[in-house]
C-alpha cells in the first residue's frame, strides 16, 4: 500500500461526511436526498476497497459486499425520493 494512503482515505471519508451533513441540514428536496445517498455510496465503497482491503480480495466477495451497499442505498433512495 502506498505511503499515507490510509491517512488520505480517512481524511477523504471525514470530508465527505461533513459535506453530506452540511448538505442535508442546509438544503431540501429530492436532489439533496440523491446527493447525500450518492455520497454515502462513495464513502461505503471507499471503506470497502481501502480499509476492508477488498480491492485485493476475491472478486465474488467484493461484489457481495458492494452489492449489499448498493441494495441498501438503492432501497433508501427508492422509498425516500
Amino acid at each position, binding site marked *: 500500500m502506498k505511503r499515507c494512503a490510509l491517512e488520505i482515505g480517512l481524511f477523504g471519508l471525514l470530508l465527505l*461526511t*461533513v459535506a453530506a*451533513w452540511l448538505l442535508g441540514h442546509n438544503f431540501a428536496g429530492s436532489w439533496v436526498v440523491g446527493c447525500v445517498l450518492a455520497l454515502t455510496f462513495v464513502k461505503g465503497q471507499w471503506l*470497502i476497497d481501502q480499509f*476492508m482491503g477488498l480491492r485485493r480480495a*476475491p472478486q465474488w466477495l467484493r461484489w457481495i459486499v458492494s452489492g449489499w451497499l448498493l441494495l441498501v442505498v438503492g432501497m433508501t433512495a427508492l422509498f425516500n425520493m
Partner: protein
Amino acid sequence: MHSPESVLDDTKSLEQPRQLPGDLAMWCFILAELLAFLLLLGSMAFARGHWSELFSAGIATLHPEAGLINTVFLLTGSYFAANAVHQAQAGNRKALVWGFILASACGLLYVGVKVTEYSMLFADGYNLRSSTFYFFYFFTTFFHMAHVLIGMLILLVVAWRCHNGHYANQEKARMASESAASYWHMVDLVWLVLFPLLYVLP
C-alpha cells in the same frame, strides 16, 4: 509521472494473488450479519418513506451533532484498525496491539455518545413504545451498538493474544488481525448507511 516507489507498489499489487482478508468463517459470520442489517435497514427505509411526517417529527427530536461525532469516532476507529493490520503484515506486532486498542477506544467513545443520547431522549419521555419511529430508532441503533461492543471485544481479544505471543507465527497473527479488523469495518459500513437515514436526510 510515477515515482519508483509507486511503480513498485503497482507491480507488487499486480503480482499478488487475490487473497481473502482474514478467515473464511469470519466472513461467513460477517455476511450473515450484513443480511440481518439489510432487512433492518430496508424496513427502516420503507417506514421512513411510508410514515414520512412521523419520521420527520421524530428525527427533529434527535441530536444530529451526536450522529456526526459518532461517525468521526467510527471512521477514525476503522483507520486505526486498518493501519494496525498494515503494520502486522510488516511484522510489527506492537503497532498491531496499539492500533487495536486505539480502535477499541474509538468504539468506547461511540458507545459513550450513544448512551448519552439515549439518556437525553429517555429524560424527554421517549422510549421504544412512543411511536413507530422511536421503535425503529431505538431497536436499530441498539442492535448496531451491540455489534460495536462485539467488535471491540474481538479487537481487544486479538490484541491481548498477540501481546502474549499466542500466535505461533506471523501468518496466524495476520489471519487473526485481518478477521478482527474486517468485522470492525463491517460495523462501520452499517453505520455509514444508518447515519444519513437518521441524522442527515431532509
